[in-house]
């Protein structure tokens, strides 16, 4: 039983539980904003089709939010279970940020969500729209706190260290608005929007095949393609800025994702290859001269530090970071390309008619979520070997739990999550397999769902706005 293996297993467990979890809030964040837009358009135009699409996705939202609450419960305890030393040392800084997220989510669940889900016929239009907006804002607020905590771990500041190695908050403003936070927040929120846009688009494209005249289906598809056209390029820009920020604060991460070992002027861009940590080179590298310098320093002869510039024990595992980064960027560019393609077809009046576009969009249903997970892999694995960058090492963060304990709990998590979230995914797909209809109904009343929270909204008689 070796300590290094226990650390690796603890990381695997955290990666598994957070990887499962992150998809659900990302879905909720994107979908809540989409729902707010749909309801706003409905109130502004009174066109039935907006309401139909709103009701259709509202049902999906109820399921997704409920699953997110379930996996979130586990996250509240993960830090203490497997990362006790981290918890003890950083609790005073990271803990309050996380707790603010819990309070925000609690507040949402307690009130507005239930009104949003079940109150449409009961509370009047303005109140209901306000509830929808508040839920959308609430999901963004949750993202704000979680990303503040994560970004502080990437670019820590505003703290002092106690003699026993604990981080003590000195300036909360500096802690929250740490250097990487604005970039990460923007990049992540846009990623949530795009993930949902591509899923909505794919559901639209799927139903277009059989029911091309369904107005609600056309609306979903069209709105998703507008998002792809307008937002995917913004995301490319935001990602570029985030990358420059990372270069400034975490150069080793950039070196690992570039897969370049040497430091020299006019750094090339390695398109593909396989970083070899032992031999300190990247095998089978296909590279474009000067492009790396151009992208990262915006100059022809700029130099980026290669991996060899960092001591071996401070190098993040480059193969994982390198490939995760390529998956993310590849999918991001593909999404932007689909947006352009759809825009061009729209101009030519063939947006709904192109079978190839439909197929491509269906195939890209999970593209946003996969890119999002790949992006998190880049940023989290790229931070290694630290949990709090440059200060607290991952190896010094784990709980004193041996291999058998971590291994068996990891197995239990995998089994339970696959059953539970597998079942959730089946319900979701069952919902999306049916196209929206005119006069689409909202979430079924009379069936308990966790996302209803403790709202009294369902008890208010229909048609009687208080």
């Amino acid at each position, binding site marked *: 039983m070796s300590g290094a293996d226990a650390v690796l297993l603890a990381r695997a467990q955290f990666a598994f539980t957070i990887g499962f979890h992150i998809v659900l809030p990302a879905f909720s964040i994107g979908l809540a904003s989409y729902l707010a837009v749909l309801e706003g358009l409905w109130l502004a135009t009174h066109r039935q089709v907006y309401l139909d699409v709103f009701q259709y996705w509202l049902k999906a939202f109820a399921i997704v939010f409920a699953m997110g609450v379930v996996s979130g419960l586990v996250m509240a305890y993960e830090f203490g*279970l497997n990362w006790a030393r981290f*918890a003890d040392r950083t*609790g005073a800084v990271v*803990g309050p940020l996380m*707790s*603010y997220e819990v309070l925000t989510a609690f507040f949402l669940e307690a009130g507005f969500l239930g009104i949003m889900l079940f109150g449409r016929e009961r509370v009047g239009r303005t109140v209901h729209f306000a509830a929808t907006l508040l839920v959308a804002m609430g999901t963004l607020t949750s993202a704000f706190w979680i990303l503040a905590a994560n970004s502080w771990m990437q670019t820590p500041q505003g703290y002092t260290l106690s003699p026993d190695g604990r981080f003590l908050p000195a300036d909360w403003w500096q802690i929250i608005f740490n250097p990487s936070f604005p970039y990460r927040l923007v990049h992540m929120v846009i990623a949530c929007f795009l993930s949902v846009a591509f899923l909505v688009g794919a559901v639209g494209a799927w139903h277009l095949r059989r029911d091309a005249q369904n107005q609600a289906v056309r609306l979903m598809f069209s709105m998703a393609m507008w998002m792809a056209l307008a937002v995917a390029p913004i995301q490319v820009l935001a990602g570029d800025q985030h990358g420059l920020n990372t270069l400034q604060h975490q150069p080793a991460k950039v070196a690992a994702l570039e897969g370049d070992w040497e430091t020299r002027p006019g750094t090339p861009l390695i398109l593909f290859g396989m970083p070899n940590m032992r031999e300190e080179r990247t095998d089978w590298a296909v590279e474009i001269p000067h492009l790396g310098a151009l992208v990262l320093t915006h100059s022809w002869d700029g130099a980026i530090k290669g991996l060899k510039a960092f001591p071996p024990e401070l190098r993040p595992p480059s193969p994982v970071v390198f490939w995760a980064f390529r998956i993310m960027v590849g999918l991001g560019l593909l999404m932007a390309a689909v947006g352009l393609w759809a825009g061009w077809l729209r101009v030519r009046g063939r947006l709904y008619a192109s079978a190839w576009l439909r197929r491509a969009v269906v195939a890209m249903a999970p593209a946003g979520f996969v890119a999002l997970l790949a992006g998190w892999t880049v940023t989290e694995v790229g931070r290694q070997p630290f949990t709090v960058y440059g200060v607290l090492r991952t190896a010094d963060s784990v*709980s004193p739990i041996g291999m058998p*304990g971590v291994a068996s709990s990891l197995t239990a998590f995998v089994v339970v999550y696959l059953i539970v979230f597998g079942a959730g995914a089946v319900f979701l797909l069952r919902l999306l397999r049916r196209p929206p209809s005119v006069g689409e109904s909202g979430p079924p009343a009379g069936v308990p769902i966790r*996302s209803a929270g*403790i709202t009294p909204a369902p008890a208010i008689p229909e048609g009687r706005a208080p």
Partner: protein
Amino acid sequence: MILTLVWAGVIAFAVLAYTLLDGFDLGVGILFTVERRDADRDVMLNSVAPVWDGNETWLVLGGGGLFAMFPLAYAVILPALYPAIIAMLLALVFRGVGFEFRFRAATARGRAAWDAAFLSGSALAAFCQGLVLGGLLQGIRVVDRVYAGGWWDWLTPFTVLCGAAVVIGYAMLGACWLVWRTDGLLQQRCRRHARVLAVATLGCIVAVSLWTPLLNPAFSQRWFGWPGIVLTSPVPILVAAVGWAFWRGLSRGHQFTPLLCAQAWFVLCYAGLGISLFPLIAPPSITIWEAAAPPSSQAFLLVGAAVLIPVILAYTGFAYWVFRGKVRPGMHYH
């Protein structure tokens, strides 16, 4: 100093609120062992459907609050009770999903499977919470701010007794809840369950109370020494008085008294725990003063908690008020 006390109070309150609230809905799940008819189970679930999620959120609040405000306690308690806590979390996940999917299952077999998940998840979660309680009372070995024991150290006859006690106690809370919220034959049966379970719970309370002082000389000093005894002696007297009121309420057909008394028992046990432990947060050595986050963290989070927790409480109270009254077969909570 004051902030540390305030936060210890807030977190203790969150944990108490959790046991009182989620206790009865876990208890409803445990009662599935004896209530097997589909129609009855529908009524039982519908009686807790509007509130169970809110109940569970106190657990997240307690966990998150402990991490932020008493990081050292969070960092030694969770590894020390690692398997019990993970089993509890997974059981809660399973049970929650069983709850929701039962009503969406397409076949009778699927329904039975999700029922089984709800029952076993509820019972296991309750049992694990008892293990955690027992493990905490037994004491946690800490060296250099890190848990220094093995990962099965907590498993002793005492923790198993505590586990069983919590299962029985929650089942009693569940039965009393159903006495309040149902009528007819189901209510009559629940009165019987409540009676049996109350006797068993009282037995557990006595057993755990007699055992606890033996675990740690400090506890027995607190309970039987001067001046502690001034504080401790009313506790057993009150337990007896509440027991009498409980029995009378149940026999005379009161609707709400049994639940109220059952919860009062829990509050008294909790107060007894507080008397034993204070100011320890992770016995035998870590106090709230040692484990506390610095004042800047305490003040920063208190701003949000002071605004949001009262709102949440008011809202919870309102929701319970709105959903008062009897739940009958075929009646949805919506």
